[in-house]
């Protein structure tokens, strides 16, 4: 598996350290900062959490940064501030500079800059051949990416929306995942397939799909989901450097999250999860956009006297059972919050894995909050009700901790 690479001097708050114990977190601190636990708040600004929870203001929209502290914070802190899609672009650009075999292909990625601007200006910098505009044939340009990867390029295939990659399922399942195995290891496929998925703002059922539940069974691929600019850049770089085919799930509503990320180069591990908020009472496992709903609910829970431990699992295939296991051994209660449908989603698999491996440590059955098994409706309130909301999370934790 890809080894963990981290730039020196970067706080390792965002990746789980092997022996996690909330009392004795060993951190390499950034210069000029006290060692402490870095908590990503739901408004996506970095703050030091020194033990006593700050009563933050409740934000109704637990997704996009409102840019509250950005005005005051610019030059004094190290690193630079950017939005999530810019972080993705930065990661991609750095890898393309570093390795001339990295190339991007997808619809409108070239001179248009990508439908979510992740590949903006890359075509001007690297040329049309390395940032390739493809005709509308997802199965075929994914196949092209696979063929190019087999022949020595490191392709990054962008699906304009993850849902469109359903058309590429044949190539992803039958060829991308399989060819390394069926060729006896002769042909490697170091491809990255990425794109935005998840429920957006009234995009309609076809554009609100959670493809991680369909792809999770395919042997031979790895899946990761990014949720902050920091891990977006790190995971993008790790995915490109990985020898295996990696599917990077982004979320439509998270592209405008702002965060301050280090100037130094860093690469995250593809198989590790992220400790967002250590706690004692209950382990809440989540990923992508639901992380923010959970953190929003965590504020309420803290006010009510609970101490939830929130882990952003990040690695959807394979699960980081090490971190998750350590957490369960401490709290003995698990709540999974996901955006996938109830049937066959990531939560379903995670529940099975936890029950199999950590049954003895559980004081209560694993609770999984997921979307209903319905296509996502268009109407605003209906759409909101299909996605797990913070209030439901609070109720579930309360019930779990009784």
């Amino acid at each position: 598996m890809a080894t963990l690479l981290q730039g020196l001097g970067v706080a390792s708050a965002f990746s789980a350290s092997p022996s996690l114990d909330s009392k004795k977190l060993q951190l390499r601190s950034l210069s000029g900062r006290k060692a402490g636990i870095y908590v990503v708040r739901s408004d996506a600004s970095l703050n030091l959490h020194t033990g006593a929870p700050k009563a933050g203001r409740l934000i109704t929209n637990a997704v996009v940064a409102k840019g509250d502290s950005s005005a005051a914070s610019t030059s004094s802190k190290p690193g630079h501030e950017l939005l999530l899609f810019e972080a993705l672009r930065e990661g991609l650009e750095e890898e393309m500079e570093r390795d001339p075999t990295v190339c991007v292909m997808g619809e409108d990625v070239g001179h248009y800059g990508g439908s979510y601007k992740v590949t903006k200006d890359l075509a001007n910098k690297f040329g049309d051949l390395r940032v390739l505009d493809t005709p509308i044939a997802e199965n075929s340009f994914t196949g092209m990416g696979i063929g190019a990867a087999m022949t020595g390029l490191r392709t990054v295939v962008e699906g304009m929306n993850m849902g469109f990659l359903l058309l590429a399922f044949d190539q992803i399942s039958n060829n991308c995942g399989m060819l390394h195995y069926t060729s006896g290891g002769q042909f490697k496929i170091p491809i990255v397939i990425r794109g935005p998925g998840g429920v957006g703002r009234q995009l309609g059922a076809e554009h609100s799909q959670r493809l991680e539940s369909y792809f999770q069974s395919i042997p031979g691929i790895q899946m990761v989901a990014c949720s902050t600019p920091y891990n977006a850049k790190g995971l993008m770089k790790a995915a490109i450097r990985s020898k295996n085919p990696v599917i990077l799930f982004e979320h439509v509503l998270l592209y405008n999250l702002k965060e301050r990320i280090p100037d130094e180069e860093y690469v995250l591990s593809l198989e590790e999860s992220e400790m967002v908020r250590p706690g004692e009472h209950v382990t809440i496992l989540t990923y992508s956009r639901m992380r923010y709903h959970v953190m929003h609910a965590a504020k309420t829970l803290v006010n009510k006297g609970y101490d939830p431990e929130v882990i952003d699992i990040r690695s959807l295939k394979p699960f980081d059972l090490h971190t998750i296991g350590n957490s369960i051994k401490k709290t003995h209660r698990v709540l999974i919050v996901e955006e996938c449908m109830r049937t066959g989603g990531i939560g379903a698999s995670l529940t099975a894995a936890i029950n199999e491996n950590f049954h003895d440590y559980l004081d209560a059955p694993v609770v999984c909050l997921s979307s209903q098994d319905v296509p996502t409706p268009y109407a605003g309130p209906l759409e909101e009700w299909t996605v797990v909301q913070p209030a439901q999370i609070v109720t579930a934790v309360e019930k779990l901790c009784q």
Partner: protein
Amino acid sequence: MALYMRKSTTILRHVKSKMAFMASLQRGSRSSSTPHFDRNALCQPNFRNLSNIHRFESTIAQNHLSSVCADENQVLDFPGGSVKFTPEMRFISESPLERTSCFRVLDDNGQPILGGSFEQVSMETAVKMYDNMVTLQTMDTIFFEAQRQGRISFYLTTNGEEAINIASAAALSMEDLIFPQYREPGVLLWRGFTFQEFANQCFSNKYDNGKGRQMPIHYGSKQLNYVTIASTVASQLPHAVGAAYSLKMEKKDACAVTYFGDGGSSEGDFHAALNFAAVMEAPVIFICRNNGWAISTPTSDQFRSDGVVVRGQAYGVRSIRVDGNDALAVYNAVKAARQMAISEQRPVLIEALTYRVGHHSTSDDSTKYRPANEIESWRLARDPVGRFRKWIERNGWWNCEADTQLRNNARKQLLQAIQLAEKEEKPPLAEIFSDVYDVPPSNLGEQETWLRETVKKHPQDYPSDVSL
């Protein structure tokens, strides 16, 4: 060209009918002013005849005709470029007047056709080609028999398509990447895959390149630049385009070559791959083995176009139709295509017409859907191997004894290879879990441990000849 000529004949017909109409309306008035029409005589020479016909009462038609005449030379600007317009509503016919002609160099008796243009092939190459074609035939026969004897589970023959396999391989270089469908083991044979390697793959023993993970005939060799066969139809076409794109970026003196059948040309991947290759100007050769059958589906049920070659132009891809049973023609066409693909950085489509003499595979009995005499006539009278043999014998490069010797040797070696491969051990248990990823992750490690324990606990339920 044909379309343009049809246009002028249509105009001729149109003008004649107009003339007849006008003649029927004559009212004894004076003839039309000829100079008016003569001004435009160059663009519509036939209008000169109208000077004999009487004028209409109205001059509107006259002006209209003249304005139309002038505008015929104007173009319209649309996204994609300018097009000439025509006031005449004309549908392009669904089929051309004549089917695209087929390039062949040797006739059915192996005689070079007069006036043919082909590159002479050296004796060495020609003999090697024949040798390989015969070997391929022999290999097919023996492995097919082995399947019928129950020694391997599955096999797919190339009967009738030996020329396409070998001649195309002969025209390529070792650096060209091959993306095959499944009926092209001849290309591997030409490149040096040994009988033992073929047999090892079919028996999926531990010496198989693919480590026993794929069905028989799903060969692959990175060393010989032949990508492992996947069972999915036409999925290799976009792969080939991607590989060609990679070669283009690296500016290598090589191209990607991909094979598929008439059935494969119906898959979505075919259309997108050709389209992409044209747009990206990728150096890839698409070789379609149009053998008339897709399992039991004849080409009349597969498409209604004039075969696959006409689709090339639809995507902006240069194409040629070749007699797939004429080894020399195939050799020449592929050689020329390769040159074009690499020097001009463009895709080329080659449709090789042939006939699938054998069954689709060992799981098929083709006499159920086609007449046995049709199969026999192609097998005997139109055999590509026999045809090429006549040509090399006529050149004095081959004889009967050499033939018998070749066949006997091949047969002996193949039987030996099969016997050896059969006896070899199957791949060890560890190979179930390796190569899924670059390094096995923890969950696979767990699963492997569990499996090993199970096998150890119940050895009687598991084959004893598989090492752990």
